[in-house]
């Protein structure tokens, strides 16, 4: 069981709620926001081990949010997800400040694996 807190930012509530519930089934503490502003508000009030951001967000884009997170919370690892999908065998160029970049539909096990790796990489000593 993983004991970390995740903030998920995705404007698609249907997707986010299901994802949150599934991850909670796997013992991961989840919060979610549907836009950049909501995400920043949550970051001010709670502490998270990792943030998962959808590339496409209404209002503030995923990239803008990423920049702010990188600046204000430099120790918080980021995983980006996107519905643009990737061409098979090739990833999008990963933006700077992102641990990994995953296509939708998500492979849940892959996501959990990446989150674990990101948090581990972020621990002191690494």
């Amino acid at each position, binding site marked *: 069981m993983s004991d970390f807190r995740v903030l998920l930012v995705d404007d*698609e509530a*249907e*997707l986010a709620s*299901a*994802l949150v*519930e*599934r991850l909670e*089934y796997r013992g991961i503490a989840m919060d979610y926001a549907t836009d950049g502003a909501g995400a920043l508000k949550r970051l001010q009030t709670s502490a998270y081990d990792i943030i998962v951001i959808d590339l496409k967000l209404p209002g503030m884009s995923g990239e803008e949010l990423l920049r702010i997170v990188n600046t204000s919370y430099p120790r918080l690892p980021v995983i980006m997800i996107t*519905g*643009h*999908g*990737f*061409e*098979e*065998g*090739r990833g999008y160029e990963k933006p700077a400040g992102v641990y990994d970049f995953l*296509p*939708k*539909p*998500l492979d*849940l096990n892959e996501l959990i694996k990446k989150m674990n790796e990101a948090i581990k990489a972020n621990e002191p000593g690494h």
Partner: protein
Amino acid sequence: MEHNPADISPRPKNPTVGLPRYRRLRWNLIVIPSLAALVPLIIMAAINYRQDVAAYKSESRYAISRLLSNTRRSLQFALEERRAVLTLIAKNRSLEDLSNDARLMAILRDLKESFGDFVDLGLIDGAGVQSFYAGPYALKGANYKDQPWFHEVSLRGVYVSDVFQGLRKFPHFVIAIAREMKDGEYYVLRATIDTELLSRQIYALELIERADMFIINKDGVLQTRSAFHGEVLDSVALNIPPHILDREIIEEKDLPGGERMTMGFAAIAGSPFVLVALSVREASFTHWLYERSDVILFLIASVVVILVVVSFRSKHVISRLQESDSRRAKMLHNLEYTNKMATLGRLAAGVAHEVNNPLAIINEKAGLIKDIATHEGDFPKKDKIISLVDSITTSVDRCSRVTRRLLGFGRRMETRREQIDVKSLIDDVLDFQRTEAAHRNIRINVQSAPEVSPIQSDRGQLQQVFLNIISNAYAAVEDGGTIDVAISQLNSNEIAVTVTDDGVGIEPKDLQNIFEPFFSTKGEAGTGLGLSITKDIVEKLGGIIEVQSGIGKGTVFTVNMPVEKVD
């Protein structure tokens, strides 16, 4: 699609359709410069010809005229000399002195010594009787009273006869002068002259080639031998121009056989003789051809050189033009193709994105159902629900593979290098044609040697290459046919892909042109650009494409690609 601006680039015209245009252009490129070069040349030759002909004519006339006047002058002089000597004898000697055969003989001897051509000498009294005579014949006492010449000499004082054979069987003529005495009586001094005198004057002059000169009398009887017309005293059918007394007349006449005759007449004053000179030469054009063979050769050589150079140059220019036209058409086609692909790519990416989001939701909801089912103890048909959910997630996976491929083709346009596993790339390409393969019952075998290294290349363009080659294979095989794709490592830096079909094969003559732009055996159905573009792409990526085929033997395309392209 039809209304997308990216799609309205002009369709390249197949240049082979415009062949008559090239023929016409080439014709113009030959005719106009040839005319520009040849017309002045031919005009120059024509001017040269006219000048030569004029010079040649005046040269002929001049030669005849000079011959004629020189000979006439010396003939006149010779006759005048003999007449003068007879006149001198008559003046210096009294009649009594001359009336003596022995004295006449002495005078004749002197004359022969001085002139050589005097034959005899006679003294004729007013009654026409030759009372004294010196010479080889028995003419003493001959009576000339009734002969016309006797009347003429008595009237005019001097007479030169025509040439005649007379009694003595050799041609000669007579000079006679009359001497009037104080009492009104007269006598005549008559000398016979050998015609050698005349002949000598003529032959003494150097005759020009193919020329003839002779003397005739006013009745057209030859007075000397003629090279062309016969012997002395033969009649000649020559029209002597009237009124030639004092002048030379030169006539020109074309003879049958392309020759030209220049003929001159001159009367010898104080005699019945007319001097005739003529020359025959090649007609002027034939002569010109012969004389100016250098000009003719130069003209012919120039014409040949000009025509050859112009025709080769024009061929060269036209082929360059054709080449550049075909390059341009190909470029246009490439551009059009690129535009089309970019448009398709944008559309595909849009669709993929729109589909991806709902797919993601389905994926998560299904996953959640499974999570719940797994975590909530037993309930009826739990296993069935879990297996239904699994089949939903499997379908979502399939869908998402499709959307990813769509995105892949959309992003094909930028050239980028990346690690490519050729086997999986070919599997992707085959995926696109799987439906056709199944429908037509075509068997496709893909075999890869173990340990084929991935290559650095452009994925999209490489997909295009194999898509074209495999599409051709599909077109070539019968329903139920087989296509074999083999991937192998040639050496550490080169891999090979062969695509073998058991189709109809390609004729050798078509095989030579198979990579030429606009070459198509599919008639209206093909643009003829597929394999040409394929070859371009392969070469751009540093590879080589080859084809082997025979009618009924199927076709093998081989593509060798470098593992890493060295630029």
